[in-house]
């Protein structure tokens, strides 16, 4: 096994990897940008190195330079840009440093998403229908023509990169070019590649994911399936495993196809093969994500397997620790992303200091986070700051616990999406397990919550008003606290 591993990331995924390294007794080094000195991944590491580059965590050259200088055996890039950077993977391989990932060749292949679909389709597997090629954002006429051929609705996706960033749904021709522009500029920012492609989509459908482990010795196993249909701007918000309501026959068919795809591209380590599942039971291969995902926590809760540990073992050349028969998929798990944002205000990001923080607890509840009371959610990074996952022997038990844990989770000082997550967890379609990617959060945000207790809230509001008036008077002239915030902002979607 590795003796020394460098974590090339920050936030909760860096903390997550540090934890597993420590659990394994592996020396763990981390990186930090100047403003991130006291961040949790630094506090918990064995060694911490300052990144001097202005590109910070995104500077693959400096990351590799540090790795060479301090002689680590391996680099774990988590998810995000560095984890999907074939050039970086190849440079590490040439330097004799293992990169936790599928290997540079497989990475290059699966990142060419249009090419992957073509190959998978050539193997006789049903796939989603992509455009014939990728497009630059200025190829308006070609895009409009291609979209007309594919038909609407369709997805605009970044050609590079497997993250939700840059993926947008287009329902009507009028939205196409505006969406392409947004998608392309996000892709440019995240992947340094402004090309996009189009993909035909059938609505309603479901988004089914199959996590896979593969080693250097040709062994591949699945860890069940997940349902990731509930998304916001195509980023998954809530996820559950197993995907509800699938027949065992369909489930096993999907697993089989996923294994076939993973084997086809020799995707080592942990990966996810993702499918669109239509209402008639047709499942179409969509893409391969060749890295750890936020959503893997659901799988960890079902299997009790530490997936980051398996990544390290596999990268070190060990054969899989589990056969397919060893993997026991017990019970049900649900996960959500907790973000510093205000869903009632067009998802306005809300960085800032955490003044109050209380995690839910009890049996079969887990929260992974990089924040704590008194810590800061920085302005510069992603709004995801915690992942909540719960387990139950049955879906019903799991759902009740999910609802309870969400109610218990208290964060003060920044706005969060916890209020919305609570509503999703209580929504009739989610409770019944019959939702699709058309699951709408809009009605949740617009309808006032049911409450027999408005009278009580009025009493509390009155006390808050009096307290505020008292506190506010000495410091701020009234005129200064009024008016400005109404309609004074608009967000780019």
């Amino acid at each position, binding site marked *: 096994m590795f003796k020394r591993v460098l974590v090339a990331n920050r936030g909760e995924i860096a903390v997550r990897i540090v934890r597993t390294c420590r659990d394994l007794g592996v020396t763990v080094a981390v990186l930090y940008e100047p403003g991130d000195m006291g961040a949790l991944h630094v506090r918990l590491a064995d060694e911490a190195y300052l990144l001097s580059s202005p590109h910070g965590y995104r500077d693959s050259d400096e990351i590799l330079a540090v790795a060479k200088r301090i002689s680590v055996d391996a680099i774990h890039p988590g998810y995000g840009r560095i984890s999907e950077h074939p050039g970086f993977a190849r440079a590490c391989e040439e330097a004799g440093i293992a990169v936790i990932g599928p290997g540079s060749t497989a990475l290059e292949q699966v990142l060419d998403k249009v090419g992957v679909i073509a190959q998978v389709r050539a193997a006789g597997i049903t796939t989603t229908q992509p455009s014939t090629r990728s497009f630059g954002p200025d190829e308006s006429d070609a895009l409009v023509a291609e979209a007309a051929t594919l038909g609407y609705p369709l997805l605009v996706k970044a050609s590079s990169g497997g993250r939700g960033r840059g993926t947008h749904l287009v329902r009507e021709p009028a939205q196409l070019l505006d969406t392409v522009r947004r998608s392309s500029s996000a892709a440019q920012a995240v992947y340094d590649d402004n090309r996009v492609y189009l993909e035909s989509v059938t609505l309603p459908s479901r988004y089914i994911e199959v996590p896979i482990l593969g080693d250097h010795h040709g062994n591949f196993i699945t860890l069940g399936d997940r349902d990731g249909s509930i998304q916001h701007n195509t980023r998954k918000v809530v996820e559950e495993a197993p995907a509800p309501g699938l027949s065992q026959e369909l489930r096993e068919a999907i697993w089989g196809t996923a294994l076939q795809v993973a084997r086809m591209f020799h995707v080592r380590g942990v990966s996810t093969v993702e499918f669109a599942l239509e209402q008639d039971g047709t499942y179409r291969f969509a893409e391969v994500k060749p890295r750890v995902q936020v959503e893997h926590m659901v799988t960890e809760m079902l299997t009790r397997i530490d997936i980051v540990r398996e990544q390290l073992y596999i990268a070190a050349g060990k054969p899989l620790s589990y056969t397919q028969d060893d993997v026991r998929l017990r019970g049900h798990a649900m996960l959500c992303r907790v973000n510093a944002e205000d869903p009632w205000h067009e998802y306005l990001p809300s960085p800032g200091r955490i003044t109050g923080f209380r995690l839910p607890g009890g049996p079969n509840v887990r929260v992974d986070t990089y924040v704590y009371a008194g810590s800061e959610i920085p302005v510069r990074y992603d709004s995801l700051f915690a992942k909540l996952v719960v387990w139950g022997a049955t879906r019903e038990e799991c759902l009740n616990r999910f609802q309870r844990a969400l*109610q218990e989770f208290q964060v*003060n000082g920044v706005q969060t999406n916890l209020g919305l997550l609570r509503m999703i967890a209580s929504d009739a379609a989610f409770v019944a397990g019959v939702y699709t990617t058309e699951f709408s959060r809009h009605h949740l945000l617009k309808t006032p919550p049911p409450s027999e207790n408005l009278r009580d809230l009025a009493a509390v509001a009155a006390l808050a008003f009096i307290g505020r008036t008292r506190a506010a008077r000495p410091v701020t002239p009234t005129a200064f606290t009024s008016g400005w915030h109404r309609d004074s902002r608009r967000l780019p979607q």
Partner: protein
Amino acid sequence: MSKLLVTIDDTEFEVQVSGQPDADGFIAVVVNGESLRVAVSSLAAPEQIEWALVDTRPYEMIVDHDLRWIQSALGRHSVQVRDLEANVARPVSGDGRLKAPIPGIISRVLIEIGQRVEAGQPVLLLEAMKMENEIIAPRAGTVLSLNVRLGQTVILHEFLAEIG
């Protein structure tokens, strides 16, 4: 004693609050003629309220800094409070001051002092958490002051510019 008109979502309540907490920590509140005993975790500022106890009913809650909403376990309720005695409602919009709606970094400055702007015209871009947020002019007028420059980090509610 205070007399307030409190609107939660679309329901109006007349609320009277008298005096200080009793020995048990409750404050007497009368809502639409009904007497309640209310305790809250902080009487200082709305955003410090984390829980309340109304008679025997506990609430976990988050209250907006500007008291525009209250969030309980079930969701977010809009709030409006009017002081019936002061007979002064919360001031309405129309002010030309721009403050930062979120902390962030000024990624573009689209106006200069003395420039004429239209209502709704983008004046600044504020970057936070990998997203750009357009700040638009709340009214037509002239840029009277501009307190930020490109690349500057601003905190929540920081005064950015004034249009008058």
